[in-house]
């Protein structure tokens, strides 16, 4: 499958879904004018990918500076897809990185981690 790459904009995050390199990343600020429009292509890509990924391993890193509440449900959707990919036999490592001063962002990660089976590795960035 082809990789999906999006550069960050002022209000949307950078996205890398690279199955060949096993590297997945969403980072930056997420406040799209229309969250559905931004996130649905990502969800669709993962929909396709989860049917192909049955072995190997990938690393998935979330490094949000900020996300708004209407992005939150799409982030959870993405996490649920990752959960399925892991269940299907492709081992997934989830890294939740946050600014060391941003306790709220760490807590958001903790809340998300309660909703899926794959454990999170929390990384505080100084």
């Amino acid at each position, binding site marked *: 499958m082809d990789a999906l790459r999006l550069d960050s904009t002022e209000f949307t995050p950078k996205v890398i879904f690279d199955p060949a390199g096993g590297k997945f990343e969403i980072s930056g600020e997420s406040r799209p004018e229309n969250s559905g429009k931004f996130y649905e292509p990502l969800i669709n890509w993962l929909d396709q990918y989860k049917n192909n990924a049955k072995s190997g391993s990938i690393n998935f890193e979330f490094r949000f500076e900020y996300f708004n509440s*209407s992005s*939150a449900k799409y982030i*959870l959707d993405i996490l649920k897809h990752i959960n399925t990919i892991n269940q299907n036999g492709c081992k997934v490592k989830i890294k939740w990185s946050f600014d060391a001063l941003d306790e709220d962002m760490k807590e958001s990660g903790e809340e998300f981690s*309660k*909703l899926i089976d794959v454990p999170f590795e929390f990384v505080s960035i100084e």
Partner: protein
Amino acid sequence: MITSGSHFISEIYKMMSDQKIILTYLGDVTPEITNAILKAIKTDDARFNNEVVTKKKVYKIIVECLENITRHSERVERKMSQSIFLLGRDDDNYYIITGNYIYGSQVDSLKSVLNEVNNMNKEQIKDKYREILNEGKISEKGGAGLGIIDIALKSENNIEYEFVPIDSDVSFYIFKVQVSKNQI
């Protein structure tokens, strides 16, 4: 009204300085206005005395407040779309105050969400957030109250609100939240 321009400006200047009003806006809250307000806040470290954590919280809350206004004003007719946004501070807190028109039919459901979060502790608010998120019934327009819950979670203070009936259909919704400055 604004005939004696210089006098009027002096008055406004004095009032805003005395009341410690950082930013105020009256009009349609369009996506462009939202972006402009957020940009101004993002780049203004001096005004926040380099209190990074507080500034982040204020920023997040303003996003949710402005998005709530946009959601409501799309529903209320154009003639009623003028909203007010205000960011102020005193020695201990930042204040975010908004006022916008909503339909009377929305008042009860908003009141119940606001009362509910005001009566919860932080852990209960987190549980509620997770519950709504996991139900996945959040529409782009509806928000299912997640924005308000998010504001309560970030501000860690009670939300003050008031609904002023305008006519049989429309009320003016005033929303005030405060963020305590870091006690470093």
